[in-house]
């Protein structure tokens, strides 16, 4: 039988915040779940509509399910948000390298780790938080949102790290008023982290990268680019000489510092280089 995609059935749907939705997807064939790891991504195909990349926040072979959390940004995510339990979606992948966990597994409680997420960028960090806390390491998590209306996963993450969770909102409607970057700056004054991971809007990541590099803290960040083929051939997701779908989407600090486009430019579907605006 020729099969190009894995068929998944939506089993539950949740509105996480104003524009953010979660779907749990059941797969009869769980092969796609076996190759998942934190930070890798899958391509979601909605026939007749669109295909786009998403990084699952949960995947489990036993229950043969995957949970996808996404923000409505275009036609595809809008259509996905309007879908309901019982409907089918088609998935290929996973693609990309994902977060590299091995360099930190040997660390002890005395060497704390930091995870920073901004907005919907928090979703792909959930499996990482899960893996790290399983090894009972000292983990601090900073999540930044625009306002209390945009928050999600706060309770889930609190269950993992307790008081080590810092929430920030731009308008101060929940947690500390300010950005995740501000909160990390304060945290770095008090604590020495041995390693950091981050995902979120690129201006935030760029500022974090500068800050962490200055402090000599090695880190990995999950970047986002326009993805067409996800196979490393079309070149739509290239950042300098690196393909997001092959060499990324997670890059470590040694690569990040070599990327002249990081924090400055992204590419439109045509490949035109466009400045990244810090909104």
């Amino acid at each position, binding site marked *: 039988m020729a099969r190009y995609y894995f068929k998944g059935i939506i089993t539950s749907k949740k509105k996480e915040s104003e524009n953010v939705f979660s779907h749990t997807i059941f797969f009869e064939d769980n092969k796609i779940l076996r190759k998942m790891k934190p930070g890798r991504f899958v391509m979601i195909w909605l026939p007749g509509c669109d295909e786009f990349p998403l990084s699952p926040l949960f995947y489990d072979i036993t229950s043969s399910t995957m949970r996808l959390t996404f923000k409505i940004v275009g036609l595809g995510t809008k259509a996905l948000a309007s879908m309901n339990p019982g409907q089918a979606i088609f998935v290929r992948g996973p693609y990309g390298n994902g977060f590299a966990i091995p360099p930190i597994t040997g660390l002890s409680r005395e060497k704390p780790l930091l995870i920073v997420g901004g907005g919907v960028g928090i979703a792909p960090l959930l499996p990482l938080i899960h893996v790290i806390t399983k090894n009972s390491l000292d983990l601090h998590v900073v999540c930044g949102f625009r306002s209390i209306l945009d928050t999600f996963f706060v309770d889930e993450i609190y269950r993992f790290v307790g008081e080590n969770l810092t929430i920030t909102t731009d308008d101060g409607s929940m947690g500390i008023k300010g950005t995740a970057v501000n909160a990390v700056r304060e945290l770095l004054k008090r604590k020495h982290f041995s390693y950091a991971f981050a995902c979120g809007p690129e201006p935030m990541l760029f500022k974090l990268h500068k800050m962490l590099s200055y402090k000599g803290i090695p880190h990995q960040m999950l970047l986002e680019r326009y993805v067409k*083929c996800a196979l490393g051939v079309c070149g739509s997701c290239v950042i300098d000489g690196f393909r997001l779908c092959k060499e990324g989407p997670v890059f470590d600090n040694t690569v990040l510092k070599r990327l002249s486009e990081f924090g400055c430019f992204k590419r439109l579907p045509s*490949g*035109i280089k466009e400045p990244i605006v810090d909104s």
Partner: protein
Amino acid sequence: MSLRVTIASLTLRHPIMLASGILGTTPSMLIKAYKSGASAVVTKSLTINPRNGNPNPVIVELRYGLLNAIGLANPGVENYLAECLEVKDDLSRIPIVFSIAGTKIEEYVEIARLISERGLGRALELNLSCPHVQETRLFTEDPKLAAQVVKSVCDVTSLPVFVKVGLSTNLIDVVNAVVKHGASAITAINSVRAMVIDINAKKPVLSSVYGGLSGPAIKPIALRVIYELYENFSIPLIGVGGITKWQDVVEFLMAGASAVQVGTAVYKRGFRVFKELVRGLQRYMEKEGLKDVRDLVGLAH
């Protein structure tokens, strides 16, 4: 042992080039492909205006190749050239072939003129055969139109003009026409119009339904075309279509290609494929006691 080959005024360190459409949307990837071992790199086909290409999905992985319908997504010639100029020093050391696509003869001419003026490329490759863009395909079906576009482009450039042809019933007539009107080499073949249906979704996978099949699935067809063109013409030929192993390179050279282009194999085996192919070719030549790679060209005739 010499692996050097010459195609018109283009001298290459060995016969294995990067094909158009693979990673050529950004100059940074062209530089990477050259540093990884390609002897020359061909850009993504450039059009006069930026093109977003087709909506996703635009690609399907198959056991014997890839089916793609990217739809000539590219930043447009001016934006691309501007980006090339940012890394002009690096690019000037690399043999770059600029691939051009258009919907009218005037567009091919204008793009060729702009590229030639900036002095960045070593050759032009006219894409007359993109299998999933209807307007481009017209040129490869009509010998008169193909001849006209080649003649008009040759009038505005001093760069060698390669013509990339696809499968068509009147291929010999098309090649005959473009050779008479100034083509310096023929690149054959483009990907082959094809489709797939996902039986669970019960729909064609590609948003544009049809796409171009590349990879090992089309190799015997591409090889046949090169063999046939070598029998009929004395113009340099560049073979492309499913070259994955060094044995494929040898086959294409023996069929009559002076050089080959590699595309889908970069997806299968990564950038290391160029060095692996060159190494395999070298070993074969050593074993066969061949001193010059040009001695292989057309050997099977």
